[in-house]
């Protein structure tokens, strides 16, 4: 999500913007519009609103560029800023989400033969993520947004990695309880699996240990 050439381009563009060249900001928006809109989409599941929130994030970034201390990468700063914007936007105007218990049940055995059924159970999972309590929802959103990179998600949230792993583990346990037959449903439709898959996998055993610690505390 952040290659060195893009980082150099970002840095050069930032210097130009800070020097007063507003036009240079266009390059930044062009490079980061996709990730920021997709990140916003995962927070609200509303395309129009996702674009509005991403636009607000870019504006805040533009206002704050001079204050960026260049301690980390530009992308880390931008994602953290965007996450703050999205969080506060959703606090002001929350999305309409069903409670976890009210999310639609996964499809029954009879419906499993339709392709629609697999799609519906994925949609139900997306909705269930939005219905998670906030402290668990955001780690899930950012972990999968960052292609399952715990360090990147923790950096965006400004949390220690251990805390993020613990919350993530708890969130996955809640989702697992909610969708106890997900493996069977998806196994029935292997062709319907989503195409993109993150390159970094997080050991389930490690996460389970974090859950136990959290529960013990």
């Amino acid at each position, binding site marked *: 999500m952040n290659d060195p050439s893009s980082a150099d381009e970002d840095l050069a563009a930032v210097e130009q913007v800070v020097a007063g060249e*507003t036009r240079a*900001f*266009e390059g930044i*928006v*062009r490079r980061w*519009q*996709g990730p920021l*809109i*997709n990140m916003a*989409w*995962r927070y609200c599941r509303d*395309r129009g609103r*996702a*674009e509005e929130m*991403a*636009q607000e994030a*870019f*504006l805040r970034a*533009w*206002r704050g560029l001079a204050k960026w201390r260049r301690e980390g990468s530009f992308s880390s700063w931008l994602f953290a800023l965007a996450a703050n914007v999205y969080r506060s936007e959703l606090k002001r105007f929350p999305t309409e989400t069903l409670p976890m218990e009210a999310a639609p049940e996964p499809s029954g055995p009879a419906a499993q033969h339709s392709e629609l059924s697999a799609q519906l159970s*994925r949609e139900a*999972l*997306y909705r269930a*993520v939005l219905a998670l309590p906030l402290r668990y929802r955001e780690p*899930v959103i950012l972990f*999968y947004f960052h*292609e*399952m990179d715990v360090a990147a998600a923790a950096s965006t949230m400004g949390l220690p990695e251990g805390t993020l792993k613990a919350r993530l583990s708890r969130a*996955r346990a809640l*989702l*697992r309880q909610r*969708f*106890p037959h*997900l*493996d069977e449903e*998806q196994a029935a439709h292997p062709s319907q*699996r*989503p*195409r*993109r*898959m*993150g390159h970094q*996998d997080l050991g*389930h055993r490690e996460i389970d240990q974090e859950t136990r610690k959290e529960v013990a505390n």
Partner: protein
Amino acid sequence: MNRAKRGRSDECAGINRNARIETEIDQILAGEEELMPSSGFLGSVMDRVRQEAALPPPIPFPWKLAVPGILLAGGVCGWGGYELMRSGLPLMSAFSFTLTPRHLSAATVLALEQAGWVALALGSSLASWLLSRRLAGASGIL
């Protein structure tokens, strides 16, 4: 013995099942298709950026005009504090010697009340000043 073995195998099956479900969750959530930004998105962001850039820079805080007022307010606060101490300290000492209310004369009670009102007025002035600064989004001092 067999029961223990069966228990262990049930436990293993449960763990495997959980792992499979979590793998499915991972695949679904990590494999979401990406949205493409709408064609006008870049333009609308840059329009807003240009609008903001065209705005005059924020007016700096008029320190030259404000300093006399701040000094005056500081003086009033200082004077109030001094008066409070001047009238309050003897009362406090009187209070410490005469712990029972029957030893407080009417004049002492009156003076205590006045000191209380002065303290309240000073406190509310300070609170309203801080509140107005906060509402104006001011930063810096306090």
